[in-house]
């Protein structure tokens, strides 16, 4: 089957499912990136009824390991740590904050196409050890280093520009928009309290957000997700192999990935086109529409990011996303629950691992294993992960 047929037909050669999943508690850790990944991966391997030697390849998201620990080529070190075979390729994948989802999508394509039967995908990151100044600097390396970086732009700054443009474009006064942005943070913290693996397990109020220090006008501290440490991993296998690995396979129904240029080329950054393309690919491959999604883990690196994401994914009309959170439509129990895990805001954001943590949550939701934050009857879930200069977005749709 050629690429054209896959693109036009939206079909793959065979179905792929998730067996075991694993995740460390996100927060501040004294463990190394290799150690954290080993913990998450062992949980996924043990939950798959296989040995590490059965894994045919590792796809590992890791963004700033070089700056964090002076560690490059981390993928084979993680593979070896787990006891994987020397003849299994281990590859580091970097797509800024989308890395682990890029890894999962990549892993899916290799299994769907028949090249591998059983693979391990995920990510690891140890951001807190850098301190705020270096972390802010290295995260900003996701911008265009020739034509944006020297302005001193930061990621909060990029999304601050999105917020201002959004307010201007849709005629929503900035103060009103900021109140709604704060409600996103409140919702996600409320959800995080119910997630034992979340970085923060503490409710906040709209006042907490609006009284917090300004980071990049108009984004305040509590509009921003934290710097976190952590790792997450999933085992993916073919439809045939999965039968002996779990009695609760969660199928990958569709994947998509889009790639765009720097912010200044994208111009109207209230519309993140890389996401619209990625989501379209995923919906088409799955034969589904936004209305079919029961639960979504999306990229709330900043409160405004959740608002624009829920529009880009087709859950709300463009310009209507901010009023949706005010109406409770995205809460647990709402029309389209978003970020029941607590999202990046409360669950945390170890950037190389985040995509796999979103997958972990969706898989657990579809298996009915989320306790107080369970979305009743969820059968189809979606992850949305964005990296760098709004430049890489990956969407994955899962179903049972």
């Amino acid at each position: 089957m050629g690429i054209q047929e896959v693109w036009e037909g939206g079909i793959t050669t065979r179905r792929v499912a998730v067996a075991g999943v694993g995740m460390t508690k996100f927060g501040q850790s004294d463990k190394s990136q290799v150690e954290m990944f080993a913990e998450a991966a062992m949980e996924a391997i043990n939950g798959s009824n296989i040995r590490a030697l059965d894994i045919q390849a590792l796809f590992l998201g890791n963004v700033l390991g070089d700056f964090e620990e002076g560690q490059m080529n981390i993928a084979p070190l993680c593979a070896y740590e787990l006891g994987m075979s020397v003849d299994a390729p281990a590859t580091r994948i970097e797509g800024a904050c989308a890395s682990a989802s890029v890894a999962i999508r990549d892993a899916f394509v290799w299994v769907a196409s028949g090249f591998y039967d059983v693979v391990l995908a995920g990510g690891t990151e140890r951001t807190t050890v850098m301190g705020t100044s270096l972390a802010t600097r290295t995260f900003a390396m996701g911008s265009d280093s020739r034509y944006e970086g020297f302005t001193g732009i930061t990621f909060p700054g990029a999304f601050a520009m999105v917020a201002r443009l959004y307010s201007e474009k849709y005629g929503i006064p900035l103060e009103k928009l900021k109140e709604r942005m704060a409600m996103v943070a409140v919702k996600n913290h409320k959800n995080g309290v119910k997630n034992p693996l979340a970085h923060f397990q503490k409710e906040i109020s709209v006042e907490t957000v609006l009284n917090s220090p300004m980071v990049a006008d108009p984004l305040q501290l509590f509009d921003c997700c934290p710097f976190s440490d952590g790792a997450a991993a999933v085992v993916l296998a073919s439809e045939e192999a999965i039968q002996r690995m779990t009695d609760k396979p969660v199928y990958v129904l569709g994947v998509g990935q889009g790639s765009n240029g720097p912010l200044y080329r994208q111009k109207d950054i209230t519309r993140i086109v890389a996401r619209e393309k990625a989501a379209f690919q995923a919906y088409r491959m799955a034969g589904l529409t936004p209305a079919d999604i029961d639960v979504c883990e999306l990229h709330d690196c900043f409160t405004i990011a959740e608002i624009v994401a829920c529009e880009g994914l087709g859950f709300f009309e463009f310009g209507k996303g901010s009023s949706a959170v005010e109406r409770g439509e995205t809460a647990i129990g709402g029309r389209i629950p978003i970020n029941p895990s607590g999202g990046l805001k409360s669950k945390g954001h170890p950037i190389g691992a985040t995509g796999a943590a979103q997958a972990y949550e969706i898989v657990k939701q579809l298996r009915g294993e989320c306790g107080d934050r369970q979305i009743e009857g969820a059968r189809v879930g979606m992850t949305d992960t964005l990296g760098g200069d709004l430049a890489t977005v990956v969407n994955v749709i899962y179903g049972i």
Partner: protein
Amino acid sequence: MTYPLTHKQFYEGLKAGRLQGLKCKACGAVTAPPKICCAECGATELEVILLSGRGKIKTYTVIRVAPEEFNAPYIVAMTELDEGPWVMGNVEGIDLTKPVGDLTGTKVRCGCRIVPPAKYTGGEGVVLTFSPA
């Protein structure tokens, strides 16, 4: 094929007071900063032209938590040049000790500032600056 206008040539132009762009011979669009092909249609038949340096601010932020090597507060903005392209730069001439009014739509003129080379910067940088006109 040769790169039509490298970042270094773009920077040198700025330092000499010239804001350069690439005019597409196929579709007429202007690409700035430069790329190997037209930002609108992808054609590689491009000619270097001089831009007016005039534009208006489309969106901006006041950075209060700076990365290493930078000192907050300062303003980062995206400006739409009169010729069409959007560019990122720093707004100058605004008193940041007072609340900053709404800068969206402000007409500006481009200048530049040199950022000396530091660790991980790939050499010297030249940033666009925007002064309210």
